[in-house]
């Protein structure tokens, strides 16, 4: 119940295309869903995050869609660029004081020029 399942494991998209990464969870106590972006040799960095009181959040070319009833959320990258090539991790956390994040296994995105 503490898992976050992420798919696909890898994704290849042409420049200008839409990249879509999906995550699913079981624990309904999760109430915060961030996405992290990691470039090779670097630590992850927060990209965008959502809380379950909204169904969508957009920041520039990046959008999180959240489906509370299906217990799924996804990251959409519009007009994908070669500079977006990185590994993306979804995550979730539970209220309760420890503030721990549970991470998906990651999606390696390659955007071809």
């Amino acid at each position: 119940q503490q898992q976050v399942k992420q798919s696909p494991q890898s994704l290849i998209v042409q420049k200008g295309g839409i990249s879509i990464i999906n995550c699913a969870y079981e624990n309904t106590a999760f109430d915060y869903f961030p996405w992290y972006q990691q470039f090779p040799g670097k630590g992850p960095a927060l990209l965008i995050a959502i809380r379950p009181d909204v169904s969508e959040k957009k920041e520039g070319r990046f959008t999180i869609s959240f489906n509370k009833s299906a217990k799924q959320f996804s990251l959409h990258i519009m007009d994908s660029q070669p500079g977006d090539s990185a590994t993306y991790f979804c995550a979730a956390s539970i209220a309760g004081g420890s503030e721990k994040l549970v991470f998906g296994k990651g999606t390696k995105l390659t955007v071809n020029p």
Partner: protein
Amino acid sequence: NAGVTQTPKFRILKIGQSMTLQCAQDMNHNYMYWYRQDPGMGLKLIYYSVGAGITDKGEVPNGYNVSRSTTEDFPLRLELAAPSQTSVYFCATMKTRFYEQYFGPGTRLTVT
């Protein structure tokens, strides 16, 4: 501000050796975390701390120990290194809930 610093960047250990991975932050964040990252496996939480003097186990604590005597520092101790501890280790900090976790640059550890 340096943010989150980790030392060393790389280390090769022999089986049975011990070492301490250092993590320091200058953001005055209460929450600190140690993760390990293995290829295709995401980030696994080893230990975490919600403030100086308070630590707790994460998902994969076996073979590791931590201490948090100050807000700034959160060292991770490996005792009796094993090949299964070959990984990239990341330290992270967070101000409070719903805020970003800031990750350090990582330590790549190889145990042979």
